[in-house]
């Protein structure tokens, strides 16, 4: 099929676009639309968060005390740094420097990995303590009767976010492979650009999650 194998080295483009630039703009536009759906999807959880934290402020205050803000802060820093390296990856792709682009993508990927490892440590610690969502809540000594609800919110929000981090890491790895094959150039870097947009959104959502869940005080 004509769209499947387009030679991108000399400003080539899929048959239904007028030019490579037209294709790039359209892809970016499509990515922004998809990000809208992501925002709305998380939006549902944020709405639930605000409803429940308004109804049960003490529960949420108590719940946030069981989270270690240091872990959250480190993760925030890691993700912010990874957004920076992502921007650099796009920059190098635009400069026709596939090697540096690939390196930056790898650093971004490793940052995602660090984030997930820290998340894993947090999760296992809480699961051992019995700080589980809803019905499964088994921690003894909670003051609020429905502390499980706070942890439902916590696991749903961070879980959905974490699954996005994993998907983002997969996409970054895919770009990394393509950069290693020298596929990007100043006329064609659409995948890095669009994955970058996605990664910034994932980062941005965490920047909201961190204070909402860890820093209620």
């Amino acid at each position, binding site marked *: *099929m004509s*769209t*499947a194998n387009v030679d991108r080295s000399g400003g080539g483009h*899929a*048959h*239904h*676009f007028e030019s490579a630039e*037209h294709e790039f*703009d*359209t*892809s970016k*536009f*499509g990515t922004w*639309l*998809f990000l*809208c*759906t*992501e925002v*709305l*999807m*998380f*939006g*549902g*959880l944020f709405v*639930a968060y605000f*409803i*429940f934290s308004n*109804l*049960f402020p003490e*529960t949420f205050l108590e719940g946030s005390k069981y989270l270690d803000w240091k872990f959250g802060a480190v993760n925030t820093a890691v993700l912010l740094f990874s957004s920076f390296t992502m921007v650099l990856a796009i920059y190098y792709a635009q400069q026709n420097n596939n090697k540096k682009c690939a390196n930056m993508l790898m650093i971004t990927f490793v940052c995602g990995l660090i984030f997930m490892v820290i998340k894993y440590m947090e999760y296992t610690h809480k699961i051992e303590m019995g700080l589980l*969502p*809803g*019905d*499964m809540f088994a921690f003894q000594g909670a003051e609020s009767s*429905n502390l*499980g*609800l706070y942890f*439902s919110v916590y*696991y*749903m929000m961070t879980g*959905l976010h974490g699954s996005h981090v994993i998907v983002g890491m997969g996409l970054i790895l895919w770009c990394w492979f393509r950069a290693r094959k020298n596929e990007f150039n100043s006329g064609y870097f659409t995948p890095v650009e669009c994955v970058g947009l996605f990664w910034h959104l994932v980062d941005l959502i965490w920047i909201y999650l961190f204070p909402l869940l860890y820093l209620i005080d």
Partner: protein
Amino acid sequence: MSSAADTSKNYLNHEKGLWSWLTTVDHKRIGIMYMITVLLFFAIGGAFAMLIRLELFAPGGTFEAQVYNQFMTFHGAIMVFMVIIPGIPAFLGNFVLPLHLGAKDVAFPKVNLMSWYCLIVGAIISFISLFYHGADTGWTFYTPYSIQTDNGTILLVLGAFVMGFSSILTGVNFVATTHRLRCKGMGFFQMPLFVWGLYSTAILQVIATPVLGITLLLLAAEKIMGIGFFDPKLGGDPVLFQHFFWFYSHPAVYIMILPAMGIISELITAFSRKVIFGYKAIAFSSVGIAAVSFFVWGHHMFVSGQSELAGVIFSFLTMLVGVPTAIKTFNWVATMYKGSIQFQSPMLYALGFLFLFTIGGVTGIMLATMAMDVHFHDTYFVVAHFHYVMVGGTLMAIMGGIYYWFPKMFGKMYSELGAQLSFVLIFVGFNVTFFPQFILGAKGMPRRYHDYPEAFSFLNSVSSIGSWTIGLGFIVALIVIIHGLLKGAKAPDNPWGAKTLEWQTTSPPPHENFYTDPVVTGGPYEYR
């Protein structure tokens, strides 16, 4: 580009073999694949409807309540998620949108194929649930019933979640296509009104569907882990689910009807051979309906226990949606004034649409009126109302659209007589089935009842007899389509004398849609 004059090659014989279809990224072929799947799902959903009417033919039981409830659930879920939502955008829209715009394809052809696979995977997951005790929640999955019932529901919920991706990806694709791929000379106001309908729909799909996605995920998590969002024991709220659910599902109603309205604009102009009356009013009312539709979800919940103030606001905003809808109807009728009207089967479906949609519309206003809705809510009046809008509206438009674009899709004509016969059967059968349900509802018969008091039996029998007539009508329609495919006469490029771009290319169109890049110089309905 293919060579300019070779008309023996078209998108159907461009490549051969099943594999070339399953891996195609051609919007026309994907449209045809959607056609086959949607019609298949429609047959399954229709069979469930027949079983429902069989049970309700007379008081007393043919099936057990539990079995009936599964029929009712699967009828609803299949018809909503697998037929009516993908029916127009993904099937007719896919085929027609790039042709209407003078484009060679949609913006993201591979994503387009992926969205078809999402629908298939989601549908398979949903159907698997039938083997695990099925689901008996109704298509609305209201909590806490859905949390407490059998776990087969989880599969149906996850199936609907996956199908949501299909809808989102189609939406993203269509918005981008409309913005970026219009041919030379086609500004927004030179676009056919079907494109406006699809465009408004696509915006709704992009914005509303993810909220359904998260709602269904929460419901699944609630069933698997008991997260308590909708469970009063943990301080959650079962009514919160309804808010979440209708925040998507009300705009979804417009996902179903807006593109149908677009098709009607095409049909009325083509068969009246007349410029559309009030192009901009119709175009903007599509966008207006889409915008307001996000703020009316609470009209499903006047008696649910939501606050009184919320009820008042939602009732008011719902009335506002009525205005652009009324404008469209008047404009269509006005378009016929001093036209040259031909009663081909697509036009019959368009007229049928106007007839039934008007009744659906005025009963919608009744339901938006708070005190009236207190009486009608969750009775057969509501069932009749939304069937008049969804079947009488959307399905009529789908049928009209199939007959209208059939010559373009397959390069063949169907039997006009057969198509008209199927229309008469469907139209009459529809009214016989659903009009009595208004009366049943007003008399107080609740919906989702497996059995009913003797007093309701006569009208229910009438309704069941009507359903068989509809069934017969669709069988005739299917025969007409298959007969047309196999034995139909060769179709001319423009059998209806219509002015939009798809009729300016060959029937069926070539792989790249047009032999020379089209250039638009005027509006889409310049009949003079």
